[in-house]
């Protein structure tokens, strides 16, 4: 009640001022000559009407306000539905604003839940994936009859490099968010980035008897070594994975007027047309991944995401049964000051 009066203080001031003015006007105007009694009568009627208006207005307002109080006390999920229906234009506007805020928040919560879910899925898939080589390693240690030490070490090395590969993936996966403050753009030749990766996979290449042909890798590009090397690592390891024994992988640089390209081709099994669109999706696993049942399907997704962050681009084309070609594009005149800002999350 006091709150109501305080809210309407200007109305009271207006009422008093208006009545005082009318009274004085009527009292002093010689042509009107009102009697005092009539003047009091006039005041009484107007006051009565005014009080009547106040009563109705008060009831209406207080209903809305107490509705708001109730809504505030309601369970957090139902506050908006518990709100009383707005009556005045002002109330409607406030309601609309609240509605918008609520919807925005709900969207945010959903997005967060989605990404938490995604992370959980990734971690689960990843743990399963990495357990396989660990189990294989344990087997090798426990059941090693009839194998020379060298053979066992050799196979352990294979399992370790698998674990290493997965751990590296997880590391870069968790690092993507902090990309914007952890990169250093400098000039490199393609072979500075490709050679370390080839060395890393030397054993696999040699064991699978896959030949490597390199050409024009002395072209210079601007990039961050660590991130791009990881991207190339993903691409080359994929080429290795999907190329059969005695296949070949060709890695070449090309110069264009608009920039440079790094082309990684293999003559492996290729990707079917219905899948090629989806290879860069998070969690997409090809036939091999499904066969192994534990595949996170994160490699190409990460490669694409990181490439875009660096201002490069990846595209892929394939002919089923003939091979796959992945093209890394390095357009000229990228404004690197903008790269991080644009993509910082």
């Amino acid at each position, binding site marked *: 009640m006091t709150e109501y009066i305080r809210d309407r203080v200007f109305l009271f001031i207006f009422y008093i001022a208006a009545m005082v003015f009318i009274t004085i006007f009527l009292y002093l105007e010689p042509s009107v000559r009102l009697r005092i009694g009539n003047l009091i009568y006039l005041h009484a009627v107007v006051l009565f009407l005014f009080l009547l208006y106040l009563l109705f207005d008060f009831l209406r307002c207080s209903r809305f306000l107490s509705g708001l109080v109730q809504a505030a006390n309601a369970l957090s999920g139902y506050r908006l539905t518990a709100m009383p229906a707005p009556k005045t234009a002002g109330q409607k506007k406030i309601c609309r604003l609240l509605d918008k805020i609520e919807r925005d928040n709900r969207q945010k919560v959903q997005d967060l839940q989605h990404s938490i879910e995604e992370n959980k899925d990734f971690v689960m898939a990843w743990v399963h994936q990495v357990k396989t080589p660990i189990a294989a390693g344990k087997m090798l240690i426990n059941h090693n009859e009839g194998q020379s030490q060298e053979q066992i070490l050799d196979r352990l090395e294979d399992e370790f490099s698998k674990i290493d590969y997965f751990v590296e993936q997880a590391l870069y996966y968790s690092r993507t968010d902090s990309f914007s403050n*952890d990169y*250093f753009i400098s000039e490199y030749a393609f072979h500075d980035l490709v050679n370390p990766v080839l060395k890393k996979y*030397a*054993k696999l*290449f*040699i*064991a699978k008897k896959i030949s*490597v042909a*390199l050409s024009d890798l002395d072209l210079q590009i601007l990039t961050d070594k660590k991130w791009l090397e990881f991207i190339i690592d993903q691409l080359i390891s994929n080429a290795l994975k999907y190329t059969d024994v005695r296949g070949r992988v060709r890695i070449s640089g090309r110069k264009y007027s608009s920039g440079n390209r790094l082309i990684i081709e293999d003559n492996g099994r290729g990707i079917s047309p219905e899948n090629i669109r989806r290879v860069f999706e998070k969690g997409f696993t090809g036939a091999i991944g499904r066969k192994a049942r534990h595949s996170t399907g994160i490699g190409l997704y990460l490669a694409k995401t990181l490439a875009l962050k660096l201002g490069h681009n990846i595209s892929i084309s394939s002919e089923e049964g003939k091979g796959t070609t992945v093209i890394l594009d390095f357009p000229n005149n990228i404004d690197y000051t903008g790269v991080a800002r644009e993509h910082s999350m």
Partner: protein
Amino acid sequence: MFTIFVVEDDPIMKEIIIDTLKKWRFNGIGVADFDHIIQAFINCKPHLVLLDINLPAFDGYYWCQQLRAISKVPIIFISSRDTRMDKIMAMNMGGDDFIQKPIDMDVLMAKINALLRRTYSYPDHEPQVLGYGGTVLNLKDSRLIYHDHQIDLTKNEFRILYMLMKHAGEVLSRDKIMRALWEDESFVDDNTLTVNVVRLRKKLTEIGLESLIKTKKGQGYLLE
């Protein structure tokens, strides 16, 4: 004999480094008590310090500052972190060089040798030749000398012969040789290796060493 002080908390890593140092005829001394590194350093009087960044309690940067307060000894940082800030910090804290885990032992030894050479200005005593059965392989200009003949070898031929000489008497599989070549950024395939070996044998035949490299069917090559 140079003494190298190895500040590394991972026991396996420490052991590997100290063993490798021994092979290269350095005296490697590890640290057991990470609370009294400075005292251990003073007792050991090393010519060079290998310092890991990730240590229990205080990190390598802290110890580097402590060491720099009392000594100008060359310091090589070992790090598993690969952010550029770490490298910058390492150098700014008074480190002389920096090597990343996983450590390539050959690179580490080269760095140690180079730093010792610069710091104590001694001539390099590494053997610059390998010998086998009357042949001498010069590691500096990749020539093979036999009696009064000399042949120039290509990079791959040299690499193959070097491997075989280092492991004289052992059978080296083709895969092993290939991996060594790949390590040197010569990404050869099966056929190329065959061609390289054929050419190398041809050159050897010219100076009367036709049977130097033996083939073990299905296993690889060896020098006998």
